[in-house]
């Protein structure tokens, strides 16, 4: 298989209340083995998945938010977060986990993986994807 495809994982649901957020993250990590051109989109309630400060002891569930920080190591460094979804929820980039990756083409400089985009920009990204998995 020599052709690399543009994969997009679309996340629209909040974490913990349903299993979608965790399942999506696990598929991304497993799918990383196929070395395709992967991007993640967080919009609507999906932006809540990236919120800082998750502490799950009292609900008896595993806190999987630290796993988002590992995405950079799996060469997943295009994480699109929709501006309009943040605005509707009273959130800013500061409320989100600081996700980074090391750019091998730039002397391993640490860069931000999260790119805040408008709904219009996200629509274009969605339109140009070859494979879209929605959660």
């Amino acid at each position, binding site marked *: 298989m020599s052709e690399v495809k543009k994969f997009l994982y679309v996340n629209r*649901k*909040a*974490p*913990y*209340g*349903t299993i979608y957020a965790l399942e999506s993250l696990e598929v991304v990590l497993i799918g990383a083995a196929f070395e395709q051109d992967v991007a993640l989109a967080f919009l*609507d*309630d999906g932006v*809540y998945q990236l*919120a*800082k*400060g*998750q*502490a*799950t*002891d*009292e*609900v008896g*569930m595993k*806190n999987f*938010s630290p796993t988002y920080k590992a995405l950079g190591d799996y060469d997943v460094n295009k994480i699109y977060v929709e501006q309009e979804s943040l605005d*509707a*929820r*009273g959130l800013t980039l500061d409320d989100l986990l600081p996700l980074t990756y090391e750019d091998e083409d730039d002397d391993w400089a640490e860069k931000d993986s999260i790119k805040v985009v408008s709904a219009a920009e996200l629509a274009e990204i969605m339109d140009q994807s070859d494979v879209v998995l929605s959660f």
Partner: protein
Amino acid sequence: MSQLHTVNKSPLDRGALESAVNHAMKGSAILMIEDGVYGAMNGTSKSSIVSDAMGDISFYVMGPDLKARGIDEARLIPGIKVVDYSGFVALAAEHKATQSWL
């Protein structure tokens, strides 16, 4: 005795919170649990659902679910009381019946 209404989904995802508020009699209670706790946050496009009804209905939110989602109590709509699991039990016992808005 009045009813206890529980809401377990985010108002930005589903109309359950709005419907519950529209159907809760004055003097009853609404408890936000699981993803429903997002309805307790101030500064969202849906915060007015709760703040407009604050005088008529007693609003509660599950503390453990807030913490799991990284929501600081300082960001809640004023007037909402945070409860834990035993608080949930107490609310259920104090009300006539519990109605779940899914």
